[in-house]
């Protein structure tokens, strides 16, 4: 626990007043940062300095700060969430950086995610995809006993692998095409794997895939950058499964 060792870093941060502002990079210095600071705590420190000197603090989305809510969304040196394996920005710690480093911080960039301010983007397109069919149409109450449907462990586990998605949108941000295939594929796969979801599988994949296009997301070219960017390590096999479900739905 050596807190006496501190770092000074140069931050080059995207600043944009609002959706219509063209935006530009500004340079800031982060001082007295220890290896135990999380990336967002480092930004907190910079913001406190900015406020004290009468400048506008950097605006960014964040909430749970424990890697599960999916709110934080920054591209750090070109990598969504900073490029550490299966880590969100809020869990990225400064021990991954060296004293004197220059760090570029940008918002998610995709046509479907318009910038609201600085590092905050509008991700409501992801909600629209789910609204198009990312559910089972069960009613509250009046469902069968939980054990009436048997789901063997390997199937339940694989559905859980897909369900781990936190909806942060890093897959879209990392995709050179701004596609939402991994996000959509994960939800479709989760529900396609489980017996509960199979009744509506065809309609679901058709509607959700249309919603992707309507929301302005790009198409998949199998770069797999999404998988590299995903803080939950969602595998591109779920995109394959979605494609399979899609093909199946064409014949259904």
């Amino acid at each position, binding site marked *: 626990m050596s807190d006496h060792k501190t770092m000074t870093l140069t931050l*080059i941060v995207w600043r944009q007043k609002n959706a219509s502002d063209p935006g530009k*990079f500004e340079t800031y210095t982060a001082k007295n940062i220890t290896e135990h600071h999380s990336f967002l705590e480092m930004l907190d420190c910079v913001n406190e300095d900015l406020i004290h000197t009468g400048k506008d603090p950097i605006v960014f989305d964040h909430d749970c700060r424990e890697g599960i809510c999916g709110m934080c969304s920054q*591209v750090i*040196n*070109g*990598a969504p969430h900073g*490029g550490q394996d299966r880590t969100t920005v809020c869990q990225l710690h400064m021990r991954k950086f060296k004293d004197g480093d220059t760090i*570029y911080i*940008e918002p998610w*960039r*995709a*046509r*479907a995610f318009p910038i609201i301010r600085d590092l905050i983007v509008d991700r409501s397109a992801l909600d629209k995809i789910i609204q198009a069919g990312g559910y089972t149409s069960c009613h509250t109450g009046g469902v069968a006993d939980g054990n009436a449907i048997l789901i063997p462990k390997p199937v339940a586990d694989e559905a859980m692998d897909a369900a781990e998605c936190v909806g942060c949108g890093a897959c879209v941000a*990392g*995709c*050179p*095409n*701004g*596609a939402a295939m991994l996000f959509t594929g994960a939800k479709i796969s989760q529900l396609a794997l489980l017996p509960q979801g199979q009744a509506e599988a065809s309609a679901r994949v*058709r509607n959700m*895939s*249309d919603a*992707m*296009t309507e929301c*302005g*997301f*790009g*198409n*998949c*070219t*199998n*770069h*797999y*950058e999404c*998988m*590299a*960017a995903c803080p939950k390590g969602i*595998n*591109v*096999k779920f*995109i*394959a*499964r*979605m*494609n*399979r*479900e*899609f*093909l199946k739905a*064409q014949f259904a």
Partner: protein
Amino acid sequence: MQLLKSSIGRKILMAITGQAMVLFAVIHLLGNSSIFGWLPGGINAYAHHLHSLPAPVIIGFRLGLLVFVCVHVWFGIQLTIENRGGRPQQYAVKTLQKATFASENMIWTGGLLVAFILYHLLHFTFQVVSPETAALSHPDSLGNPNVLGMVVAAFQNMFVTLIYAGAMVVLFLHLSHGIQSFFQTLGWSNDRVQPFITKAGTLVALGLFLGYAAVPLTILLRILK
């Protein structure tokens, strides 16, 4: 129809037409290899066999291929234009973690291949590039089209050989991404087989590259005369 309009649908059409062309490339290569003499009468006899197929078969086959190429090219361009719009503003720092040179440049390798195929068709199929060695107008002693003579004459030219070998490098790049992409896009993949498919796809692409490049190179090096 969703297959023609949706993102996944068009990708599936890309995959199927692409893979059909890979199959064609494999058959074409097997045909080419007759130049090394495993078929009595060599490549000239092979050409003769092909030409003696009933005309509707040949026309049908060629039309089919043309349709595949057109669908592949049409959707390829359409999807690429859409994808360029998917991220209107690029990042200041470009960091790619999984994408490859091949996967990033499919549209360019594809474009080069189209250009090459046109040249190749004019060169060896319609034989208008060097009419003085055209196989159809210069039959060999058995009366078969003298493909061997045409090919050897062409590839003794360093420049032509370079075009063909270069095109095969491009083909390798295109297929090293394309073949595994086919399996992913059709959904015939998962985390266990995906690494294998990727390797196998690259190997097939490499095999096609070596096979195709063998003819011009062996001729250029005067191994094949």
